[in-house]
């Protein structure tokens, strides 16, 4: 997507390729890699630098196609590019709260207290009649109900 509003596509039907340029100020490099990674099983990709801060994405289909097919492929790549951008932005904006939640779960006092409480509850259980702790609940409730 160059300076215009639309993706400027360059076709080469003979070579089954469609190319377009992305400006790195608009499209994060990692998002380009993320989208490309998801397309390597569908098409042949090649990245090059037509100018500073621009990345040219070249997609080549693995089978014969039409101009419409190439347009659709480029459109799907552009959609995935946006998807990758959004995922990265959400990931970055929620990173702090994720780190906080994980830190609290692993190292917080509440987490330690709840684990200690569970251990205390286990220790408090009356297991005198079952020193090997192999009794299962249905043995008690089922006594007398099973014939023989």
């Amino acid at each position, binding site marked *: 997507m160059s300076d215009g509003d639309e993706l400027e596509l360059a076709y080469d039907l003979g070579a089954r390729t469609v190319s377009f340029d992305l400006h790195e100020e608009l499209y994060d490099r990692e998002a380009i890699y993320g989208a490309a990674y998801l397309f390597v099983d569908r098409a042949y990709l090649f990245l090059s630098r*037509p100018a500073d801060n621009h990345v040219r994405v070249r997609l080549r289909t693995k089978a014969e196609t039409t101009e419409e097919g190439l347009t659709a492929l480029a459109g799907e790549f552009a959609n995935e590019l946006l998807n990758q951008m959004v995922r990265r932005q959400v990931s970055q904006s929620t990173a702090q709260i994720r780190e906080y939640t994980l830190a609290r779960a692993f190292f917080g006092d509440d987490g330690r207290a709840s684990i200690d409480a569970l251990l205390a509850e286990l220790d408090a259980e009356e297991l005198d009649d079952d020193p090997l702790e192999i009794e299962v609940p249905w043995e008690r409730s089922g006594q007398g109900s099973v014939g023989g």
Partner: protein
Amino acid sequence: MADSAPADLASELRFDRSLYSASAVTGAVEAFAGLATLTLTEDDDAFVVSVTDPKPKFAPVLADELANYALAETAAGRRG
């Protein structure tokens, strides 16, 4: 900044240094070494892979597959 891409079925692929990692290109060359004679050289801007004597069965797609491999490895490497 030439666009020397696999679609040309060129005998030379130029992987821009700012877009492809060295380890990914090296890994691609090693992975496909049994299918052609591959020579890796470097200049200021790019890693240059020369492809000669490809096995006929793989010749039509060898450069494309090698480029895909290098790109996938570069992307995977950046994900950590």
